[in-house]
């Protein structure tokens, strides 16, 4: 066996040296290179998105409690070697020079934040740091403006600025620019001040019975291992009591969540797509290699090698090729990725690690696996024939590529393997399966469609003499080869169109989602009698608002007169909506959405949000009973509404038609936009309307916008990369599929075909291939986009005529241009030379 193995290595070396393997190797390197490069980028972006989510939370896992948690819980975390930080949040009065202001005090442990950036401005420079040192207090913009403090160079050196909090005095040490973990105290009523937890006792502000939120932050010690944290989370979850909640990622932020989910889906799609592109490249070249090797193997069989020996030699050779090729590809991909990181700079640099194992594994496994199975599909055929039969068929290796869809089993194995790898890689079964099903079904359909079209082209071309005779003959005789090219090119094109459309749609959506002036402050508890003066106040100060919405707090108690707990499905019993008061509103415009045809006068029509209706199994015509204060109101569902949670507008789960509900005590809610420099207006607003509560989401919004900008940039990069990979793979497959045709063209040339004639023939062929590919690609892409939008991305679909035109142009330019360039080689040499060369 060792002898045979050495022989295999010898063959391999020689073939590599001769250049027989170079095209094969090249496509393998390109395929695995783009796969790994895009894989690295995807992992990186994924990490970056998590990082931003952690910025919002301040840690990977956050436990919020209304009282001190049992010491055991924290000891357990310590045992598991998790990093911990702690924050106490409570309202208290700050005093500066006899001016009083209610603030939300956050007392943080010294290692806060575990994740994310705490930015504080001191003496003109913004620093990224941990908790304030003992004796210092850091204040947000509103407080700084209110107390007329400043942190310039001079003022800091000339006079110390003191802030009193309870019994203690603090030095005003800095202006808070960015505090991680904002999401944990989103509903801040008052402006924020940050102190060190060690100073808390001195202030004596916390008395028994004070309202304090205890927030505990946990993170992994090592960046890679998520399991420990997940286990701990599971452990904690079982112990939670009322008033305690756990948070990871961005699950509570519907706006961020929806955006990030789309981004993550896009990345999964990009990954699967690159994998498929690479697979096409590897398949086409393996296929050609297998055919070529077939002849050599036939001869070796006659020389006395056993079948087993030959298969062993081939396997060893392919493994070596696969390993070397994918390794080279991965190294290349990694280098390109490093260059990209450098070029992109800030957009992607916010995670700890640069290197990821997943892309390496996927590139390696799919490279070697596809190479082996697809080459073998051609090689195992030698088992079926006698040596002489093989020699007789010797010339098969020069036959057009169409001859071969032969060993179905191996193709089946490679296809199944590809799908499994895709699912594993993307981690998104639904998306992957949807994608492949759609693609496969439509590819089969469009293959036959293309065949039909080709026959028509030839028929009408002949009938009306649109195409010259020779080109027609050429097309007719190579129908199969042309169809194979059309199939693979249109597949490549359609994948690129697909990713382009999804990318454009996503970026567009996001751009629209948070336009300039998106409300970043909410005001609640505006009393009905204050409403008019509140509105005119906003108008006077030219603060833009979308208007005030009435709001009533009420608990859902009955569905169809059954107590909710019995009425809803088992798994919905723990739904949040059943355990807290819902915000109900009134609107007379229950127009959009599904509407029930019947309106019963005795019940107020209700509109309910779609996901809530689904979770609680509520359908049209169901009656819902709410408890507001001590009274019950009943309504009948007449509308199920889709709410855009990824917009920062006041949204309500339940909206009543006007009539009954106004009789109950209601308050008003409004949202408006305030720039960073106008924050002082909040102080005045509070002074004017002391009863209102202001919710500042500007920090969160800023963070979300930041994430979206970064993710958009990343998505752009991925897209450009897929286009480049696609172009490379297209050219590799073009040259592979043309290779068998070159010999033929060299022969025809010796028969006296002029270069011009041959060129024209080939050009006609390329034009037909280009047009058909473009047409099929567009159909394929539109169809799969339609399905993906419906099933995965939940985006509205419309046709994209501009893309059609562009596709036709691009296809003509690439296929004709590249194709003519490729075949040019047979025209630049003497007829004899090119014949000899193409024979090999």
């Amino acid at each position, binding site marked *: 066996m060792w002898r045979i193995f050495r022989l295999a290595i010898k063959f391999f070396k020689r073939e590599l040296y001769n250049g027989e393997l170079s095209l094969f190797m090249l496509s393998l390197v390109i395929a695995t290179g783009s796969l790994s490069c895009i894989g690295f980028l995807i992992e990186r972006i994924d990490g970056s998105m998590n990082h931003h989510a952690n910025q919002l939370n301040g840690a990977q896992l956050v436990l919020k409690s209304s009282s001190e948690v049992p010491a055991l819980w924290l000891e357990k975390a310590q045992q598991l070697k998790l990093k911990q930080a702690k924050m106490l949040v409570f309202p208290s009065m700050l005093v500066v020079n006899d001016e009083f202001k209610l603030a939300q005090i956050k007392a943080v442990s010294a290692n806060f934040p575990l994740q994310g950036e705490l930015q504080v401005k001191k003496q003109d420079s913004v620093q990224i740091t941990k908790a304030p040192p003992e004796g210092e207090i850091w204040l947000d913009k509103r407080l700084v403006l209110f107390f007329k403090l400043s942190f310039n160079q001079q003022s800091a050196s000339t006079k110390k600025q003191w802030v009193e909090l309870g019994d203690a005095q603090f030095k005003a040490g800095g202006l808070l620019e960015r505090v991680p973990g904002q999401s944990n105290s989103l509903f801040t009523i008052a402006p924020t001040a940050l102190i060190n937890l060690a100073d808390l006792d001195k202030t004596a502000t916390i008395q028994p019975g004070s309202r304090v939120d205890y927030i505990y932050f946990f993170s992994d010690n090592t960046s890679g291992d998520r399991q420990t944290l997940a286990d701990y989370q599971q452990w904690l979850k079982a112990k939670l009591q009322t008033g305690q909640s756990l948070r990871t990622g961005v699950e509570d932020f519907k706006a961020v969540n929806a955006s990030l989910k789309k981004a993550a889906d896009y990345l999964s799609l990009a990954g699967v797509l690159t994998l498929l592109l690479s697979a096409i490249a590897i398949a086409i070249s393996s296929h050609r290699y297998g055919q070529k090797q077939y002849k050599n193997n036939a001869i070796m069989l006659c020389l006395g090698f056993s079948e087993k020996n030959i298969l062993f030699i081939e396997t060893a050779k392919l493994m070596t090729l696969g390993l070397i090729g994918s390794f080279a590809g991965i190294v290349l991909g990694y280098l390109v990725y490093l260059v990209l990181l450098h070029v992109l700079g800030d957009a992607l640099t916010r995670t700890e690690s640069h290197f990821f194992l997943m892309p390496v594994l996927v590139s390696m496994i799919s490279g070697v696996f596809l190479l082996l199975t697809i080459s073998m599909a051609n090689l195992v055929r030698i088992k079926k024939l006698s040596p002489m039969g093989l020699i*007789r*068929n*010797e*010339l*098969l290796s*020069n*036959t*057009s590529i169409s001859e071969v869809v032969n060993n179905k089993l191996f193709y089946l194995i490679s296809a199944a393997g590809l799908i499994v790898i895709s699912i594993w890689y993307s981690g998104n079964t639904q998306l992957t399966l949807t994608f492949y099903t759609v693609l496969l079904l439509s590819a089969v359909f469009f293959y036959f469609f293309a065949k039909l079209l080709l026959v028509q082209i030839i028929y009408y071309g002949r009938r009306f003499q649109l195409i010259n*005779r*020779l080109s027609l*003959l050429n097309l007719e*005789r*190579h129908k199969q*080869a042309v169809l194979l090219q059309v199939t693979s090119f249109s597949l490549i094109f359609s994948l690129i169109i697909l990713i382009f459309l999804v990318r454009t749609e996503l970026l567009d959506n996001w751009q629209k989602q948070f336009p300039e002036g998106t409300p970043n402050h909410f005001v609640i508890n505006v009393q009905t009698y204050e409403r008019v003066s509140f509105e005119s106040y906003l108008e006077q100060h030219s603060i833009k608002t979308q208007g005030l919405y009435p709001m009533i707090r009420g608990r859902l108690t009955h569905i169809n007169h059954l107590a909710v707990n019995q009425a809803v499905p088992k798994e919905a019993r723990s739904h949040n909506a059943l355990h807290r008061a819902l915000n109900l509103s009134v609107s007379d415009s229950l127009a959009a959405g599904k509407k029930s045809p019947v309106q019963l006068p005795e019940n107020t029509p209700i509109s309910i949000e779609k996901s809530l209706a689904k979770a609680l199994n509520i359908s049209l015509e169901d009656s819902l009973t709410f408890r507001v204060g001590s009274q019950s109101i009943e309504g009948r569902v007449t509308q199920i509404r889709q709410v855009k949670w990824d917009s920062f507008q006041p949204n309500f789960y339940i909206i009543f038609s006007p009539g009954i509900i106004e009789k109950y005590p209601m308050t008003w809610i409004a949202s408006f936009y305030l720039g960073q420099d106008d924050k002082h207006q909040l102080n005045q607003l509070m002074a004017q309307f002391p009863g209102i509560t202001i919710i500042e989401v500007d920090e969160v919004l800023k963070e979300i916008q930041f994430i979206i900008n970064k993710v958009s940039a990343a998505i752009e990069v991925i897209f450009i990369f897929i286009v480049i990979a696609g172009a490379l793979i297209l050219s590799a497959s073009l040259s592979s599929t043309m290779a*068998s045709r070159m*010999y*033929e063209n060299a*022969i*025809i*040339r*010796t*028969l*006296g*075909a*002029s*270069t*011009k*004639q041959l060129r024209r023939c080939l050009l006609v062929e390329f034009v037909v291939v280009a047009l058909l590919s473009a047409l099929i690609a567009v159909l394929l892409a539109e169809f799969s986009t339609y399905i993906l939008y419906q099933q995965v991305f939940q985006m509205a679909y419309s046709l994209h005529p501009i893309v059609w035109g562009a596709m036709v142009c691009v296809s003509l330019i690439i296929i004709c241009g590249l194709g003519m360039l490729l075949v040019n080689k047979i*025209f630049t040499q*003497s*007829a*004899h*030379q090119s*014949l000899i060369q193409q*024979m090999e």
Partner: protein
Amino acid sequence: MLYAQHLAKNIITPNARLDILRDVNFHLRAGETMAITGASGSGKSTLLSLLAGLDTPSSGQVKIAGYSLSELDEEARALLRQNKIGFVFQSFHLIPALNALDNVMLPLELKGQKNAQEQALDLLARVGLSQRSDHKPVELSGGEQQRVAIARAFAGHPEILFADEPTGNLDQLSGETIIKLLFELNQEQGTTLVLVTHDQLLAQACQRHFYLDQGVLNELSADDLTNSLGC
């Protein structure tokens, strides 16, 4: 009809210079038949491809039907090949994807002839392959492939036909059929024949007989022939 003047071909390899042909000179009139014999590797196939304009010489020139090949551009050479020259390759070079009939039809189609199919079928019948017209080259034996290649060379009604060992793979009977065919063509249409062969009988049947020895071409007189045959 066919002139060769100081024709030479050499190949520069990294290690050495390989002189395949040195100073080949001869003149062949229209309608003459010519045989080239020589040891394996003596340069016969190379000479043939130079004469037919499939390859370019290192020096010297070839004149064919009044045209000097070196003065023609590739376009004109192709036209010349299409209209005046037929060529049978030593290794046939049939197009694998096409069946026998399509292979034979190709030169006719290149010329744009109307009744290409009938002509091609007729030619296949003459080489004894009318039954195999829809078979691909892989499905044909070596000799059958050779006959298809000959039929293809005839198809263009060439004024001059080059054939590299046209009977090399054939049994006695088929070989004779092919030889008969070649000379019929010569008689009926005045086609000039240039044949490379190992077959002494075929060589003798030609009016002129050349011997290629390590790249040097010598014409054998009738005496040489009798000597070499030992009679």
